[in-house]
């Protein structure tokens, strides 16, 4: 179970310094915990492409940022993530909310977000894991640590 306090604690335990984000309904529930965690700064941006560039600047300056966005914004941010991940080769960790993931599995939604999220993350050559309602904060922390150990960008997709 991933909730705000457990996610904030997991990120803090990993040494993450900044969460650069635009929340969706699910990620938004983490707002209070992320905002209240000492040593963790929540950086609100206006569009997801900004999030990637801003996180890159934080990393250049010696911080340990992650990006947290919904898949819709991830789609929008393609050029920015291409630049940050492949031109600049920054090992950025991303949390991507997948809208309608469960409903799609049940054939109960016309939402095309779940159709395209995993193929597009794969197309960007980003290793990823899906975290669902059986996942724990340790799964999130382990994915982040894997990203840092490999020094390669990585994503977790949050089933919504």
């Amino acid at each position, binding site marked *: 179970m991933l909730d705000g306090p457990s996610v904030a604690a997991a990120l803090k335990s990993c040494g993450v310094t900044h969460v650069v984000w635009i929340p969706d309904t699910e990620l938004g529930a983490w707002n209070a915990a992320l905002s209240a965690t000492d040593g963790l700064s929540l950086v609100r*941006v206006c569009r997801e*492409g*900004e999030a990637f560039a801003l996180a890159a600047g*934080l990393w*250049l*300056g*010696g911080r340990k940022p992650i990006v947290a966005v919904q898949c819709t914004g991830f789609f929008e941010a393609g050029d920015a993530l291409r630049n940050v991940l492949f031109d600049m080769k920054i090992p950025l960790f991303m949390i991507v909310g997948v809208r309608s993931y469960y409903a799609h599995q049940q054939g109960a939604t016309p939402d095309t977000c779940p159709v395209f999220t995993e193929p597009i993350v794969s197309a960007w050559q980003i290793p990823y894991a899906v975290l669902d309602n059986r996942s724990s904060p340790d799964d999130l922390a382990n994915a982040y640590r894997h990203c840092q150990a490999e020094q390669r960008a990585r994503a977790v997709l949050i089933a919504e």
Partner: protein
Amino acid sequence: MPMTQRQALEVLLHHRTNRVVITTMSSAGIWPQLSDTPLDFTYIPSAMGHGPSLGLGLALAQPDRGVIVVNGDGCQLMSLGNLVTTAHHPANLFVIILDNGHYEVTGGQPHAGAGHVDYAAIARGAGVQRVYSFTTLADWVAGASTALANPGPVVIHLLVDALMGQKTPKPPRLMAEQIRRLREALGVA
């Protein structure tokens, strides 16, 4: 009469002190001829419009250092929201918008905002408290010291000449080398 981009950047050179200078697009072709230290970061290859966001992240990470981003007007139009983000997260960031009404690095085509966008008004409307606009070299020379004084965030609009037939500038060194130099200079490598 508007100033040339080179003239605008020569004035900046005298006032940048020890701040990081991030250049994009046309300015990235000129600035390395004026300054090529590890604190000069040529944002090429870039993500279009995201120079100010890169600079804001760096300024938040290095609050005592200060970061100057030289952005084109076409680039700024691609991500106007970053002015709102900049206002929301105060940092020692200075965004200079070189306004020539054109996409210069593609040879010189007018963009959608040519001649009718008030960048200073947009920056103020976004919530940036310190905003300056200079339309002549003499005014920029006279006002640069004040405009570039700490603290940020600051947005500076400069009306400059458009250069037609330009080629896309090349960075003075590969991105990996630029990153290594910058992080070493900042003491975070």
